[in-house]
């Protein structure tokens, strides 16, 4: 019998070694595997290279991992945000390295790793600072820059539900990097709101087939959603949303 479920987040992140490259899902807070990151902080791995679209929001999740000094290098597309004060401080102090990658190239480099592609030519970034030092080539009259895959030791992904084979469904725009990152790591660890019985996910709706997944842990309803701690975003009037649960109105979602 195949059973990829693990009973708690500590066991989900067990064995992540110092110096690992870790893919961390999410776009802002949507899809960020906050509970797995909390477990990684407790687990203690350091000298990490983190690959994620953003470099943390507020003081929780990826920002908390950065604040603990566990991250040697960030590979991301959009580190600077109104609430990225943890990364900003570390970067200005020279305590974290940054590799800036255009968002689509970031996604495709991860996808390429998972798909066994050696490298690929992308039109994105041609003629810009972010292509400096990279091989370029003209194909059918269009210029391209050679981009290499980003392979990782570990992927930390958040999904809505999964079964014991590791099949996953996502929720809304929280899907973002999850299906791509799940393919590109030696060990893919997924947190889900709930684990469901085998056979209860519609095979037509499975976005990540279980072959890509190694461990699944249920974290329950994500309380930081209920608490309205929707950091990294702004409300309908454009004001930054509450950075802590205590500041947020109750029942602000769903």
């Amino acid at each position, binding site marked *: 019998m195949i059973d990829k479920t693990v009973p708690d987040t500590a066991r989900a992140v067990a064995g992540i070694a110092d110096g690992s490259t870790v893919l961390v899902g999410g*776009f*802002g*807070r*949507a*899809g960020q595997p906050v509970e797995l990151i909390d477990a990684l902080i407790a687990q203690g791995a350091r000298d990490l290279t983190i690959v994620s*679209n953003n470099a943390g929001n507020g003081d929780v999740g990826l920002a908390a991992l950065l604040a603990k000094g566990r991250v040697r290098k960030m590979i991301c*597309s*959009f*580190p*600077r*945000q109104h609430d*990225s004060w943890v*990364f*900003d401080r570390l*970067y*200005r102090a020279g305590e974290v390295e*940054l590799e*800036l*990658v*255009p*968002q*689509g*190239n*970031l*996604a*495709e480099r*991860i*996808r390429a790793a998972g798909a066994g592609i050696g490298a690929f030519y*992308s*039109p*994105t*970034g*041609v*003629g*810009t*600072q*972010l292509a400096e030092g990279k091989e370029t080539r003209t194909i059918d009259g269009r*210029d391209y820059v050679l981009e290499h895959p980003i392979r990782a030791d570990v992927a930390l992904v958040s999904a809505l539900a999964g079964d014991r084979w590791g099949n996953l469904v*996502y*929720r*809304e*725009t*929280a*899907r*973002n*990097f*999850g*299906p*791509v990152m799940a393919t590109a790591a030696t060990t893919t660890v997924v947190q889900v709101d709930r684990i469901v019985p085998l056979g209860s996910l519609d095979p037509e709706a499975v976005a990540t087939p279980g072959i890509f997944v190694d461990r699944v842990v249920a974290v329950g309803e994500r309380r930081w*959603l209920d608490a*309205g701690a*929707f950091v*990294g*975003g*702004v*409300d*309908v009037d*454009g004001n930054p949303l509450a950075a802590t649960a205590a500041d947020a109105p109750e029942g*602000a*979602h769903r």
Partner: protein
Amino acid sequence: MTTRISRDALAARIAADIPEGSYVNLGIGAPTLVANFLPADQEIILHTENGLLGMGPAPAADAVDPDLINAGKQAVTALEGAAYFHHADSFGMMRGGHLDVCVLGAFQVSQHGDLANWSTGAPGAIPAVGGAMDLAIGARSVYVMTDLLTRTGEPKIVAACTYPLTGVRCVTRVYTDHAVLDVTPDGLAVRETFGDTTVAWLAEVTGLTLLDATGTDASEVA
């Protein structure tokens, strides 16, 4: 200084150029205002690069869903007929030429259609690019929405960008608060002026040679 139109008026002007059936990305910031002026009786599908086609307006404050956001990480809604997808597919929609229009902000646009909108290159600034470079080279029509002049009066339409480039020769048309200009193989062509703005005045403040295409049909030049 000649006539300037408001940001809302400019957004409405851009919206008027987007035909029904278009797949459109409005980036972040001011270009998102364009959505407010798309005609309600037409089907124009908004793409947000974090993984949604069929993006709708902001929800009521008590219906905010943290899993449903746009590229600016603002709460949004999903319309009937919406579809979710992962990031590699989302950027494939741009790179693969499937997106009809994107509207981007700018620090500078060159007379050849080079775009600079992601970094001022200031020392100590933390760089962040997001999807700007992918959008700039990805959509079939790349529209720029910008003020003609900076707050200190420097033209943002220039002979050559001095800020770090987002994309090379990628801009189709520039909508400014004074005029609309097309990027053509022969240089910038003034398509439309607002109020008492003249082509001669635009040429003077930008220091560029501009073609006068006012009075011609947009489809002839674009």
